[in-house]
């Protein structure tokens, strides 16, 4: 039985955590949203900033590039995390050692992931040294237009996180179901596609969502590995703010990025809701 509590006592308990976030998260966020609707002269409501944001190809390319740098690593890490999770279920013995080591990138800072990509995939890096004697030309993978280096660094960092959640969801599946399917003649691939993936689906959805949201505003990886054009909104925000002092535009870009993240979150809730599964995932 849970006891009730007086409103004042409740407020006192909630205040340290919630109050801190109100001051240091709520105020800056409100300021960002409010600031994007104030006219440049500083007086009154205006859509000027938004009009100039949407009219300028630099920022629209920036928005597209931010989305690309979030979607591509998410897809890449999903494509790798699913087979990894399935293989981990299939092999009991390697799960202990592998199950510990594969998680190491979780604690590796994004900036170090960027460094690893630089020394391996940049021109003069290890891959080009290995390929050159074989006569294979090294494609440009760092500061390239598609942002391949940035995508690889970001995917590398997100694969363990995705695998952790997806393998957890797969491990929670009743083994009898898998055995039954196998006994009835289903191949391993059929079991994966028809049983494991659908049953792990809430976990997969959550992992995809969190990876996307974590990547859409990333700054350090594209700033080290991305091309000079287009630049994602995160970098444009920094340049326009601290270097050009064009704050209304920074606030509009910040609002736009936040809206993208929130829309993705709402889409996630819609998907979960339509599945009729309110069960928390990853547990």
């Amino acid at each position, binding site marked *: *039985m849970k*006891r009730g509590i007086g409103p004042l006592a409740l407020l006192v308990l909630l205040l340290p955590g919630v109050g801190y976030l109100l001051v240091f998260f*709520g105020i800056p966020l409100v300021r960002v949203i409010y600031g994007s609707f104030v006219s440049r002269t500083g007086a009154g409501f205006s859509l000027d900033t938004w009009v100039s944001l949407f009219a300028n190809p630099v920022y629209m390319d920036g928005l597209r590039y931010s989305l690309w740098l979030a979607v591509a690593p998410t897809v890449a890490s999903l494509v790798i995390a699913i087979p990894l999770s399935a*293989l981990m279920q299939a092999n009991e013995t390697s799960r202990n050692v*592998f199950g510990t080591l594969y998680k*190491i990138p979780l604690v590796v*800072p*994004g900036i170090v992931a960027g460094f690893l990509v630089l020394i391996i995939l940049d021109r003069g890096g290890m891959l080009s040294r290995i390929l050159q004697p074989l006569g294979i030309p090294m494609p440009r993978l760092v500061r390239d237009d598609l942002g391949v280096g940035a995508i690889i660094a970001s995917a590398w960092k997100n694969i363990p996180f995705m695998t*952790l959640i997806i393998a957890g969801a797969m491990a929670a599946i009743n083994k009898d179901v898998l055995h039954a399917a196998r006994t009835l003649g289903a191949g391993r691939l059929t079991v994966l596609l028809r049983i494991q993936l659908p049953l792990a689906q809430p976990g997969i959805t959550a992992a995809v969502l969190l990876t996307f949201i974590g990547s859409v505003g990333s700054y350090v990886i594209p700033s080290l590995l991305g091309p000079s054009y287009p630049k994602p909104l995160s970098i444009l925000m920094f340049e326009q703010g601290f270097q050009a002092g064009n704050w209304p535009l920074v606030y509009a870009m910040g609002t736009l990025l*936040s809206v993208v993240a929130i829309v993705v979150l709402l889409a996630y809730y819609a998907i979960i809701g339509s599945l009729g599964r309110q069960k928390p995932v990853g547990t």
Partner: protein
Amino acid sequence: MASRAKTSQRLVGFGLYAYLALTLFFPVAIVLLWAFYDPAVGWFPPDIVPRSLSLSAWREVLADRNILPAAGLSLVVSVVVTAVTGALAFPTAWALAQFPFRLKRLVEIFILAPVIVPGIVVAISLGEIFFRLGLTGTVFGVILVQIVGTLPFMIRILTATLEGIPAELIHAARTLGASPTVAVTRIALPLAWPGFAAGGLLTFIASFEEFEKSFMVGAPKVRTLAVQLWSYLGGEVLILPTAAVVTLILLTPMLVIFILAERLSKDDVMAAGLGKL
């Protein structure tokens, strides 16, 4: 039949470790080569391995006036951030875990919001506000901005742990004459230890590796190790050997904590804070 199963087990094991070798051991080996190559001889393409090794990059790093202070600063900031995050999170987590109240869902969503809204948005906006307040370029400002990122996870992990404490336990203590304060400090705090351990390790890691918020608020005066590493990776100049050494220094505490976390806490404690929305 048994031998076929064994072969397939071996193949699976081989595949898993081949993946590790490619994505983990190979990159780390190259970092080590960069950290120990001899700049007097050089290491130019197409050499795959440097022709001779030396400790010169390490000597340079030790002599560099920026790096060791940056490492010390990172350590201090992370310890303070972890302690303050834990202290701020506990009462709120206690309220969320033990008492039903109206608008609880709203409070939970608000606490989750800093995880959803991209960190760069808050970092830049707080950077601008702190500039007006004179907090830019101060350690205090960096600590304040980092806690915005760590507090939500700590509250969620502690809440998940505290929900597991039966209310009867507190009830019994109260009936036997313990004051609310005593009931909380003598029963709830010790029982919340797994949550503090998991959340604390996660917070320490998040703070130690944090770049964007620290950079936007602290630069150019306050340089944590991650910010310092950025300046060697093309942020200011590109110095690969120094960057390799700083990377190794940066990774050491991460790996120690990682091993600690693996032994102390199960995945499900972390997953409780991370996986469910």
